[in-house]
């Protein structure tokens, strides 16, 4: 990365243990990146929201609470106003993101239908500009794209 890139001193990748308390490291890293690239607050919020959801899903459901695994989160600048995070794990394939399978979540019709934590995929699709899943052998790669809106 060239030295004139605003984030040249910031790691472009984090390797996390599969423990929920690792998510605090992600928040700090995102704060550093968004400051370096002058990413506005709304977009930063979307990034943190989607990353928290995606990583919690990997830890809770993908690894089923196994705290001895790792998750790799990478950051990429794709354009002047376009950024992306990819999340790679070695958990079983996460079918709700399989592009050949339709979304499984249904709208809740009463309070008891809401499954705590069951709204995550809908939130990611709402707050990220793009959500792409690809199988790894083994594991998953989830790519979250974010486009910063034009000012004004």
């Amino acid at each position, binding site marked *: 990365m060239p030295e004139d890139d605003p984030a040249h001193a910031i790691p472009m990748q984090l390797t996390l243990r599969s423990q*929920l*308390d690792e*998510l*605090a490291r992600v*928040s700090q890293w995102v704060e550093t990146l968004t400051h370096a690239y002058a990413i506005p*607050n*709304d977009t930063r*919020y979307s990034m*943190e*929201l989607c990353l*928290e*959801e995606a990583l*919690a899903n990997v830890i809770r459901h993908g690894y089923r609470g196994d705290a001895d695994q790792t998750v790799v989160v990478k950051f990429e600048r794709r354009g002047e106003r376009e950024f992306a995070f990819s999340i790679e794990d070695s958990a079983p394939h996460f079918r709700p993101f399989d592009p050949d399978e339709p979304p499984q979540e249904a*709208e*809740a019709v*009463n*309070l*008891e239908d*809401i499954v*705590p*934590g069951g*709204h*995550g995929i*809908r*939130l990611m699709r*709402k*707050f990220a500009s793009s959500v792409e899943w690809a199988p790894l052998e083994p594991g998953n790669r989830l790519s979250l794209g974010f486009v910063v809106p034009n000012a004004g």
Partner: protein
Amino acid sequence: MKATIDELEGNVTKVVLDGRMDIDGSAAVDLRMNVVAGSSTRVLVDLAGVTFLGSMGLRSIVLPAQAVRRRGGKMALLNPIPLVEEVLKGANIPALVPIYHDLDAALAELRA
């Protein structure tokens, strides 16, 4: 993340949340939220001071709301900032736990 509890007229318990409702923040207030949900049937959660609400934060609202509902009570949310409200709407929460931007209207609904 802080939670402050106030008892208002009409047996309404107001919970004022302040800070980030991420994993750490939600864990910090879950116990107090659960205690309120187990003891009050009219709960108003003031979200004006919540600067971030993620998936973990949604759990910290939904679980107490379900507990209050099972006990025959009501919960309402007050004054979330626009980003937080967008997350709540994205998870379809307002259809089930109403959001108010007016304290008097929220209290009237809870006391009804």
